């Protein structure tokens, strides 16, 4: 790749078998997305942030590149974040994966004109790729796409848009509504890089929960006067056991879940991240295979609590329940 890519796709993950083996969960959707973007002439980079690698298990950063021989290290950028950061940053030991801090690591280092934060198991829809290819996306706008859940256990071999678009294969087809177009938000948040940087990424102040951080980003964007719009078509997600949507009903308490407190005030209270958001002060080194490794340094870690960074948005969407 040469020059600035049109799109940076940021995903955060670890080799923990969450939602199934990494092959089905990350590799196939990644291959699918890259093929569709290439077919449509969209220049892109993929940034995989491997957060808190599981001890004793191979890194995704090692497993995935051989499966994607056409993608150079500059197109498929891997960033491994030292495990100490999870331990140092956590405010809730139940939340084992600080997903949005990991995504911020990728956003902070993304080179693309537009940045898409998504999840590894999301496949881009036809209209999404067309919109990216047409180059008709506006700056200072957060684009959203509804997430259509594809039936649990569907064969992913040779999965194509025709199969993904077939309503018979859908478990759920939500409709997004203004002003925030929220719903499955973490699966598709697309904005120009400058807007992501202006907003300083996702909430790094409230780290006691993983749920609601994506919604919280929309509230902050809306409060900051950033437009929120639907891109024009869905993305697809293969249902899997353990996903938050399927599993959260299993927990009797809203606070004792792996996603933290499900009822924190993510719809009303926002954040003002510090200058070092996205672990920008973490020392980085290049590994032999081109992977970037972020070594631990307390200098990169924000204080455990910074109450002055808990703020209210300057405008609130109408009708949001407390």
């Amino acid at each position, binding site marked *: 790749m040469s020059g600035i890519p049109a799109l940076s796709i940021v995903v955060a993950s670890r080799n923990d078998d969450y939602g199934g083996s990494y092959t089905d969960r990350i590799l196939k959707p990644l291959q699918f997305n890259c093929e569709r973007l290439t077919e449509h002439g969209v220049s892109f980079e993929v940034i995989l942030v491997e957060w808190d690698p599981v001890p004793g298990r191979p890194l995704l950063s090692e497993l995935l590149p051989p499966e994607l021989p056409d993608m150079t290290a500059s197109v498929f950028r891997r960033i491994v974040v030292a495990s100490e950061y999870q331990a140092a940053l956590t405010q809730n030991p139940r939340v084992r994966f600080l997903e949005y801090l990991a995504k911020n690591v990728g956003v902070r280092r993304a080179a693309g004109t537009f940045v898409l934060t998504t999840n590894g198991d999301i496949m881009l829809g036809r209209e999404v790729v067309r919109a990216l290819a047409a180059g008709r996306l506006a700056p200072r706008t957060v684009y959203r796409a509804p997430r259509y859940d594809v039936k649990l256990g569907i064969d992913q071999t040779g999965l194509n848009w025709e199969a993904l678009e077939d309503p018979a294969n859908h478990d759920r087809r939500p409709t997004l509504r203004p002003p925030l177009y929220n719903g499955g938000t973490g699966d598709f948040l697309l904005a120009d890089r400058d807007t992501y940087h202006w907003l300083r990424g996702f909430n790094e102040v409230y780290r006691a929960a993983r749920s609601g951080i994506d919604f919280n980003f929309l509230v902050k964007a809306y409060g900051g006067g950033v437009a929120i719009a639907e891109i024009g078509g869905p993305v697809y997600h293969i249902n899997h056991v353990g996903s938050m949507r399927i599993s959260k009903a299993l927990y009797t308490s809203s606070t004792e879940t792996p996603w933290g407190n499900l009822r924190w005030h993510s719809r009303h*209270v926002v954040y003002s991240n510090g200058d070092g958001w996205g672990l920008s002060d973490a020392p980085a080194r290049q590994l032999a295979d081109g992977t970037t490794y972020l070594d631990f340094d307390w200098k990169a870690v924000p204080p455990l609590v910074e109450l002055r960074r808990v703020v*209210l948005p300057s405008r609130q969407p109408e009708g949001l329940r407390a």
Partner: protein
Amino acid sequence: MKATIRKILAGIGLATAAQVRHAAAQAQQSARKADQRMARLRTSAEGWKQRHEETSKVAAEWKHAAVDARANVERATGRLEQVQAHVVEWKARAEALATQVRDLKERLDEARRVTTVARQHLMATEVKLDLIEAAVQVLDARTREGALPRS
């Protein structure tokens, strides 16, 4: 000859018996006509008298009605003035109430705005308390880990 005799009799102011009978018959006829006319006039006069009485009666009734109407008008005028006074009074009350309602609405809007702001601050405070509690728990865990010598 008869004509000459008649002329002579007429010259001295006399008439023949036939002329007298004829004149008497005419006089009787005229008297009958006069009686008949008299009778008709009498009947007509009675009719007019009756009509006059009826008309007088109707006129009296109308007069009475006019008096009643005038009394009604006077009463209604009095009542209208009362009603007008009421209207003015109620209008003033309605305006006062409308002003009160406007004031209350403004106060309600302000109260709602203050409540919203207070609720937002309360939520921010709850988030801060969440963070403080979380931090205390994390620090507590870290302290416990470091507090005891590892065996």
